[in-house]
């Protein structure tokens, strides 16, 4: 039972462990993903804000640069107006350029032809010659004209260069300055979208990729700059997705991705799944360890507790029950480890107590019934020995000392007509009610058959036949019967397996009346019994007994024996006793011999003395 319990407990703990682990793993996974998505979203938002800030920065720098350029252009125009002679003097122009901190100075006449320049090689250039310079021609007609051009790439170096110009003061013409907008360029370079990726990192190894028209414009690995997003590993379907997250295999690593579009850019935030699940995996490992310890402790504790509280109790109860089953009704179940066992113990104890009472009651009833049976048996035997008043031809006396149980001994004597006296002694095999019923049957049979006038051997044959026919339990009875003719003293007897009686001639000694006996009554069908004869003379005596006499045991387990019986009967002290006294004397000798030892069998004796034919 303990093993079964532990098996199931173990199974339960394992299942609980797996279920707990699965649930927490799933929750952790979801949380990890949620966290990752949140993190990516936040970074993307930051990136978007960065783009906006960059643009605003550029706009601010631009407006400052523009204002400074216009101021310089106006200052130059004022100088030219106040001192037109500077146009002719290259050194002074160069000095002004340096002081204005610009790279080029251009002044045109009213037709738009450059008349003064630094560098000098542009003198004579017609402003209408190129689209870029033509934008300033409006200044020829508008004295309030002012323009700062967009910066353009210039020359082989591709450096940014910018022109600003105003109308000449006092005379038509154009005053123009040209310069490298270094601050603006710096601002623009800083704000370049290509730098965005480098500025953002998601977690430890997550990043933001910026695409524009399907091409990568910003990424941490320069090798992929300008390559298509598809080449990097995104599928068309993934690229068409809205703002929801997806998982993509990029360059052999699985990433959680989130994309969003902004101002023509496609921002994609990616975070390796391995990193996203780092927390979950650590937590999972932690849970596994904790749960293993916890469940091991639970398993051990429950196991021990069950062993102590339940199994030991059950074993104890079982041991007690076994003892009770083996008949020890004094055994008490005393398992007090918990209320249930207390209840169980009390239940069993009260049941056993009730059982004990019931048994005692039944035993008392059986005792009472046995007592009744014994009384019935006893009352069926002739008990009043003065039942033959006026019959002086004989003296008959019998005693029966029953053992504890109802025994199967019986004796009987009765007159048949006036002249014949029948004596019977018998011993039924076994004890108890069945034996006593068998005895009653036998006694009745023998008496009825005898009174019907049958001879002793016929009585036994008939009785044997009847007893064999109705004898399923295989009982039998040993019996001795004799019929004494009172006028002649002729004694006809028959023996069915019974102890031979002792016979004493008047004044002589008792000796065994041995003759080959017939088989016991009820033992074997068809047994033949042979009757024998003996002639009684006045004073002759017959002593009948059952084996309870010779087999009475003393405390040393010695038998009273045939020898002691013979000695007792032939002792001088017994010589002159009448039959009644003799039987009591023998009983006394037996009691003296057994000395308080339990009587195992009925002790039955019958004494008969023939006193001779009554004279007259």
């Amino acid at each position: 039972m303990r093993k079964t319990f532990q098996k199931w407990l173990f199974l339960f703990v394992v299942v609980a462990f797996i279920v707990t682990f699965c649930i927490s793993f799933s929750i952790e996974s979801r949380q990890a993903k949620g966290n990752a998505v949140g993190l990516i979203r936040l970074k993307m938002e930051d990136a978007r804000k960065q783009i906006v800030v960059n643009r605003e920065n550029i706009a601010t720098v631009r407006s400052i640069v523009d204002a400074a350029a216009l101021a310089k252009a106006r200052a130059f125009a004022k100088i030219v107006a106040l001192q037109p002679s500077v146009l002719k003097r290259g050194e002074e122009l160069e000095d002004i350029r340096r002081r204005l901190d610009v790279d080029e100075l251009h002044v045109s006449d009213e037709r738009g032809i450059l008349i003064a320049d630094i560098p000098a090689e542009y003198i004579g250039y017609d402003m209408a010659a190129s689209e870029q310079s033509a934008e300033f021609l409006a200044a020829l007609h508008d004295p309030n004209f002012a323009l700062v051009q967009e910066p353009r790439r210039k020359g082989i170096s591709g450096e940014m260069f910018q022109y600003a110009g105003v109308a000449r003061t006092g005379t038509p013409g154009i005053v123009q300055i040209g310069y490298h907008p270094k601050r603006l360029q710096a601002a623009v370079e800083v704000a370049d979208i290509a730098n965005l990726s480098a500025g953002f990192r998601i977690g430890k190894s997550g990043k933001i990729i910026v695409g524009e028209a399907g091409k990568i414009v910003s990424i941490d690995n320069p090798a992929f700059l300008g390559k298509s997003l598809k080449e990097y590993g995104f599928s068309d379907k993934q690229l068409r997705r809205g703002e929801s997250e997806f998982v993509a295999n990029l360059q052999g690593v699985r990433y959680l991705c989130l994309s969003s579009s902004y101002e023509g850019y496609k921002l994609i935030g990616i975070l390796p799944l391995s990193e996203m699940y780092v927390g979950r995996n650590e937590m999972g490992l932690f849970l596994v360890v904790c749960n293993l310890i916890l469940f091991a402790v639970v398993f051990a504790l429950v196991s021990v507790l069950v062993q102590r509280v339940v199994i030991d109790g059950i074993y104890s109860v079982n041991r007690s029950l076994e003892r009770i089953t083996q008949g020890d009704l004094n055994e008490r179940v005393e398992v007090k480890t918990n209320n249930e066992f207390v209840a169980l113990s009390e239940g069993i104890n009260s049941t056993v107590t009730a059982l004990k009472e019931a048994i005692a009651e039944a035993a008392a009833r059986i005792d009472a019934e046995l007592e009744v049976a014994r009384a019935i048996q006893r009352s069926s035997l002739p008990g009043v020995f003065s039942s033959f008043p006026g019959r002086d031809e004989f003296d008959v006396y019998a005693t029966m000392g029953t053992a504890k149980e109802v025994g199967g001994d019986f004796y009987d004597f009765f007159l048949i007509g006036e002249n014949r006296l029948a004596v019977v002694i018998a011993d039924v095999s076994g004890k108890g009610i069945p034996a006593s019923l068998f005895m009653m049957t036998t006694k009745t049979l023998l008496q009825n058959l005898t009174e019907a006038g049958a001879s002793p051997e016929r009585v036994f044959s008939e009785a044997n036949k009847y007893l064999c026919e109705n004898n399923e339990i295989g009982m039998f009875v040993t019996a001795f019967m004799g019929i004494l003719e009172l006028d002649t003293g002729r004694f006809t007897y028959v023996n069915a397996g019974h102890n031979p009686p002792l016979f004493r001639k008047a004044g002589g000694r008792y000796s065994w009346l041995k003759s080959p006996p017939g088989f016991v009554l009820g033992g074997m069908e068809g047994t033949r019994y042979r009757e024998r004869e003996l002639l009684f003379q006045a004073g002759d005596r017959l002593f009948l007994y059952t084996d309870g006499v010779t087999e009475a045991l003393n405390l040393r387990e010695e038998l009273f024996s045939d020898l002691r019986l013979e000695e007792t009967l032939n002792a001088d002290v017994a010589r002159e006793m009448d039959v009644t006294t003799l039987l009591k004397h023998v009983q006394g000798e037996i009691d003296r011999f057994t000395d308080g030892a339990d009587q195992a069998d009925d002790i039955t004796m019958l004494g008969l003395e023939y006193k001779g034919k009554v004279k007259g």
Partner: protein
Amino acid sequence: MVVTQKREEKHLVLTLEGRLDTTTAPQLEEVLKSSLGGVTHLTLDLAKLVYVSSAGLRVILGAQKQMSKLDGMVVKNVNETVMDVFEVTGFKEILTLE
């Protein structure tokens, strides 16, 4: 009483030791009841049987009756005490003694 059983195919030998009386007879009866299946010949060895009462005789008679329908029952090594009982009760005449 101690009952020792020895079985040789269809032959059962029971050795009785001690007293065969009211208290021990049911024991022998039980042995016979449970062991006689398939037995056609029974031998009772009474060498160590010191006493037999009428209850014991009843069981012996039962066995005798049961075996008489088959190959019979033999009672051997009967000592003097028990033989006296067999004689007095007439059992000597109906048993096969060896």
